């Protein structure tokens, strides 16, 4: 978490655009375009956490989904380790999927309820040929579960047997088991209660530091963002309105929208009696 400025960019996004065609709003109106992401440029450097922060509908999640090819980019480029991933065919992109992994918000919806934790964690290992047999897979699963603070004995259990916080740990284990280079975390702790959120945030930060991960951390929660980021980009209506080191954004915000966002957060202070 030191001197991220001197490090080289792992992901370099230039003028990214993702437009959606939306249906007619009236009988005589033409189909219109929703410019969800409209010319966004940033880089995520080796071993740093860049946060994308903004309110619902600002396009921050669409950026993450476009970079993992869950949405199609309308324009721009995104160089990962020197290769433009937006120009790749899905087949060509597949080997890179191991290196670019995503953690989602909803730990209830993102685990298959009919697969045990062992099956859930083994599948990506076999797909990406990181394990040749079950014995190899199992030893990696044990190691990863320990890494995310879970007892490896839970392997035989199913998602419904776990609380929200534990499910999110499993979600993180599924990502970490692939030893990715870039993790895109989309509101990864937003659905959790504050005491559990703190546990999972500490875990994410520790894994990031221990493994020198690069992370694109997408969140609406400025407190969480301050805790985990090295640099912050503030998005508003599909564009980045301000980007800088964490201290600059939080101590000396320049853009009106950033200031308004910071001023809106309820502070723990006593109400005048």
């Amino acid at each position, binding site marked *: 978490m030191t001197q991220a400025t001197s490090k080289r960019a792992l992901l370099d996004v230039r003028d990214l655009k993702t437009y959606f065609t939306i249906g007619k709003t009236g009988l005589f109106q033409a189909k219109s375009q929703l410019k969800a992401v409209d010319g966004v440029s940033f880089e995520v450097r080796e071993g740093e956490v860049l946060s994308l922060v903004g*309110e619902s509908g600002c396009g921050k999640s669409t950026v993450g989904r476009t970079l993992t090819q869950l949405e199609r980019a309308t324009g721009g480029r995104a160089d990962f380790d020197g290769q433009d991933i937006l120009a790749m065919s899905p087949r060509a992109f597949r080997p890179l999927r191991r290196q670019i992994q995503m953690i989602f918000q909803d730990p209830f919806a993102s685990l298959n309820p009919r697969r045990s934790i062992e099956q859930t964690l083994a599948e990506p290992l076999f797909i990406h040929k990181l394990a040749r047999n079950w014995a190899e897979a199992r030893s990696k699963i044990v190691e990863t579960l320990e890494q995310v603070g879970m007892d490896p004995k839970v392997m035989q259990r199913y998602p419904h047997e776990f609380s929200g916080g534990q499910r999110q740990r499993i979600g993180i284990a599924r990502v970490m088991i692939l030893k990715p280079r870039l993790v895109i975390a989309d509101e990864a702790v937003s659905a959790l209660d504050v*005491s559990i959120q703190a546990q999972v945030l500490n875990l994410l930060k520790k894994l990031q530091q221990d493994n020198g991960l690069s992370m694109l951390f997408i969140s609406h*929660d400025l407190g969480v963002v301050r805790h985990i980021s090295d640099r912050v980009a503030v998005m508003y209506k599909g564009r980045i309105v301000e980007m800088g080191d964490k201290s600059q954004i939080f101590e000396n915000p320049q853009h009106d929208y950033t200031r308004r966002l910071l001023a809106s*957060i309820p502070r*723990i202070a006593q109400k005048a009696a």
Partner: protein
Amino acid sequence: MALLEVRDLEVGVAIGGKVLPVVQGISFDVEENQTLGIVGESGCGKSLTSLAIMGLLEGSMLRLTGGSISFNGQDLLALSPRARRAIMGDQMAMIFQEPMTSLNPVYRIGDQIIESLRQHRSMSQRQARARAIELLDLVRIPDPERRVDSYPHQLSGGQRQRVMIAMALACGPKLLIADEPTTALDVTVQKEVLDLMLDLQKRTGTAIILISHDLGVISETCDKVVVMYRGKIVESAKTATLFSNMSHPYTQGLLASIPVVDHDVEWLNAIPGRVPLIDEVLPGCAFHPRCSFAQASCATSPPSADYVSDDHLVRCHFPNDRPSGGEAGGDA
């Protein structure tokens, strides 16, 4: 006499022929013109407490198993369902967390406000419509004469929550219960909605119960705070007292868990472990498995709720007997 007096409220859930207690021994008062905050994590019983007060537990696995609720001098539990329904939506109203699911998608928003007015006030359709427009204007919906004919899907999340507030305020309730009213909203909209509620309170003197998991929201809006853990009040006090003199390890842990925006912290002081399940039997203090100050007696005997000073109630065996600067244990 306070407007609302809740005494020893108990709610149970019927599972497999047994009734397990999920809310126990809840007592508090809410005065006119006052905002009471109820704070706690999911599953601590804060929403069940509000549903019990509103009389909305019937028809589910949940039931009121004990206690009394007195509103405006009347014993609510002694009233016939019909008499109680006349109070609901009129003198007592509720705002729910998710404005999209609590508004009917196939009716115009104006008609949904008018329904309550026609039900409780013998207004003509024309009078009720005029009042609905007034209410939409009051909650700062732009262009209310046109918006009154909008459907819920044509409004933004913040606007829908304002419509919910307008519906709740339609009959000028004495008590408004807001269950996580801003949790689904963006921070800038959250601030507008909370300011609006407090502004309306100033003008009408409505008592508010604000349920939230967010200590920031609670500290900025409430006069008194009740902290719940696993169905019981673990600490309650005036807001100023609570935030200057937090005494329960759970309340302290909740505060320490919040990543703050105003300065940097390397590691958050997370509360270890998790909230116990409802069928887990804990003979002592329900928080002791997660508490870094727990002693042997905490596991065996349940603490009683005692006043440590005027109006400051704490349910802990060792409320003042801990090393200073008490924090919940760290977790990495």
